[in-house]
């Protein structure tokens, strides 16, 4: 019932945010802070790895959308790594598949970033 957030530098200007656990109204502020901190530091290319996320709700989606919005203001982008079918379904039915790049592997998400 908690979230773990791990930030690591990828190739080039890109950073990877690993999330694991459940993203809901209780835990999403932690995710928001981690992403916000990166953007404050001038990181505008992000891969957010959701492979170990078992659960995401609208507040979690809101945090991702908010992050995307902020990096786009600087010409950046956010790609997601997601293999969980239930979570993919959520991105699908909300239409968010159309605004995020969603990939099965971190490698693919990274390559598609620029």
């Amino acid at each position, binding site marked *: 019932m908690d979230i773990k957030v791990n930030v690591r530098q990828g190739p080039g200007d890109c950073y990877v945010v690993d999330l694991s656990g*459940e993203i*809901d*109204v*209780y835990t999403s502020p932690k995710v928001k802070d981690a992403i916000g901190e990166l953007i404050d530091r001038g990181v505008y290319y992000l891969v957010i790895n959701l492979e170990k996320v078992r659960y995401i*709700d*609208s*507040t979690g989606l809101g945090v991702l959308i908010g992050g995307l919005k902020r990096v786009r203001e600087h010409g950046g982008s956010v790609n997601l790594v997601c293999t969980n079918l239930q979570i993919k379904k959520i991105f699908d039915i909300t239409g968010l598949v159309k605004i995020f790049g969603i990939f099965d592997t971190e490698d693919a998400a990274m390559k598609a970033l620029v």
Partner: protein
Amino acid sequence: MNHAVENENAATDRVELRIPSRPEWVALARLAAAAVANRLRLSIDEIEDVKLAVTEACTAVIQHENHGDFIHLTCETTPQALRVRVHDSGRQGAHGENGQMMDLDEARIAGLGVFLIRTLMDEVSYDVHPQLGTDLLMVKRLAAGQAG
């Protein structure tokens, strides 16, 4: 020790949970709903749908500025469906009175929550009592024969 397993597919079960209307308790609400959904042998996907709908309903209560102190969750199985009721004791209609309105992005995300509930559940209805709070009823129907 002779009660075991007998009521596994009982026609009607009812579980009620009352939690403080704060973020840290939402996970328990979704666990309770999942435990009830589990009894009905819904598919794993359908159980996830119910968990998300309950989560969104509780979150909506918590983020409403006049939410009451508690959220009351009632999960009931019938031979045809899982019925989930989320009740809060918050006053309605006073939205905005205290100044602090949602900004447009927050409203969009709240809208997203409502959209998810409507998409994931088969029937959704509201019952708003201005002073007594809001009752949200969500129904997940069982495919024929699924009840056990």
